[in-house]
């Protein structure tokens, strides 16, 4: 471990990283999207039960700049982007680090499809041009797992999961998460947008009705099996936000996770009115790793958590 003081990324990788960051800033500059900075340390944090925040004496390290950026939009700031560190406790692996670099941006007046097009343009800027396939969550499930996610009962889903290598037991949403992970791991398309997520996985996306079924107007971009972007046609309804917040906290309690306090300032901004918009977050370390053809984010990160 005598080399533990050294960065895990090569000097060349850090130079490429710098070039790519400049290209991304140019991309937004040319589109009149302004760069903003919001706090990394905040008094409140996200309620999502699948995301654990790093808690400090002074508050929470932010897991995404979403709430702050939406407060800016509600206050009249135009379409904007932010590049900065975000934190997720306990996420460590080849494609995870508890601190990582997020690019998040919001586009006033955009719907999800327009934002997907812009995400593809940005990814083309970093990785070079490529073809994009778009599949609904249900269609992906059907083609890769061979089952209808809605028709299958819990027992069938668990059986399907076991056939796909799942060990143990789990609830419906957990099994669904597992099968989704298997599906994106084996899908043949290099660049794939998955759209129309189950409504209970909406987070802060709006719902829309497709084939008489409510789905979340949310998308993910998967590149070579790696999740790169997660975007929403943003929820504007403050009451619905409160309702989802309470459901999250109930789930947190049932999972013995600490509950989260309501972010009153964010709620007030939602009540004031968020302009119609779409927003997306991109994991930049992963995107840079793909751009450089390396198979871990450590190779493009100066000091991952075990050297931080």
């Amino acid at each position, binding site marked *: 471990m005598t080399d533990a003081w050294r960065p895990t990324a090569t000097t060349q990788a850090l130079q490429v990283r710098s070039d790519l960051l400049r290209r991304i800033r140019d991309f937004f500059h040319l589109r009149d999207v302004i760069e903003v900075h919001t706090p990394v340390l905040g008094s409140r944090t996200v309620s*999502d039960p*699948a995301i654990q925040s790093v808690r400090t004496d002074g508050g929470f390290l932010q897991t995404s700049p979403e709430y702050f950026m939406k407060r800016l939009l509600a206050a009249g700031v135009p379409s904007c982007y932010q590049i900065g560190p975000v934190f997720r406790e306990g996420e460590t692996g080849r494609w995870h680090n508890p601190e990582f670099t997020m690019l998040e941006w919001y586009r006033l007046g955009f719907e999800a499809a327009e934002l997907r097009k812009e995400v593809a343009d940005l990814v083309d800027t970093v990785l070079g041009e490529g073809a994009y396939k778009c599949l609904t969550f249900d269609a992906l499930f059907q083609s890769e797992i061979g089952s209808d996610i809605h028709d299958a009962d819990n027992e069938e889903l668990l059986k399907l999961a076991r056939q796909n*290598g799942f*060990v143990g037991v789990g609830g419906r*949403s957990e099994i669904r998460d597992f099968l*989704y992970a298997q599906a994106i791991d084996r899908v043949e398309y290099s660049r794939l947008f*998955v759209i129309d*997520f189950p409504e209970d996985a909406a987070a802060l996306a709006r719902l829309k009705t497709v084939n008489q079924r409510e789905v979340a107007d949310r998308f993910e971009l998967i590149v070579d099996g790696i999740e790169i972007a*997660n975007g929403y046609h943003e929820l504007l309804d403050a009451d619905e936000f409160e309702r989802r917040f309470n459901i999250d906290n109930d789930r947190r309690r049932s999972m013995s996770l600490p509950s989260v306090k309501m972010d009153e300032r964010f709620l007030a901004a939602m009540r004031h009115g968020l302009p119609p918009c779409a927003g997306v977050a991109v994991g930049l370390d992963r995107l840079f790793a793909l751009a450089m053809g390396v198979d871990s984010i450590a190779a493009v990160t100066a000091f991952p958590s075990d050297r931080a």
Partner: protein
Amino acid sequence: MPSYSTNEFRNGLKVMLEGEPCVILDAEFVKPGKGQAFTRAKFRNLITGRVWDRTLRSGVTMDAADVVELEMEYLYSDGSEWHFMRMDDTYDQISAGADVVGDAGQWLTEQDKCLVTLWEGTPISVVPPNFVELKIKETDPGVRGDTVSGGAKPATLTTGATVRVPLFIDVGEVVRVDTRTGEYVGRVRDS
């Protein structure tokens, strides 16, 4: 036996999976969009050698497998059982059936040093030395001087194993064999 949480998984860790001892070959943290975190791992079954791909919910634990690997000296075979001796101060002996010894048996001569894997004290696999030197028992007569044609012929060794050897090799000569590939490596000159 201790147990290991998925976040302690690392290559080489030995755990119980579906009632059988396995070694972890690879483990990866995966977290599908906005969902539950999982650990996806490859396990090699230490009894059958098969590799299993399995995914566990992050944070669950697996029991450690009581598996040890020992360097042991091969003593003799009585036809049904193969006998080995520990090389530490205990000189304990254990025996393993043909199902456990498997293909390793065809390379072993007395006093060879083997790697024996024990699960709860019972042998589950035997790995012979990477290279063994064995005498040719049977083969077609050697073609004198033919050291360049590159031709080969089958030869039976004193342990019963069959390997392909160059044409110039004769009965009674000693050859060196790589047990991992079963291939002839060279002739051993009389010393």
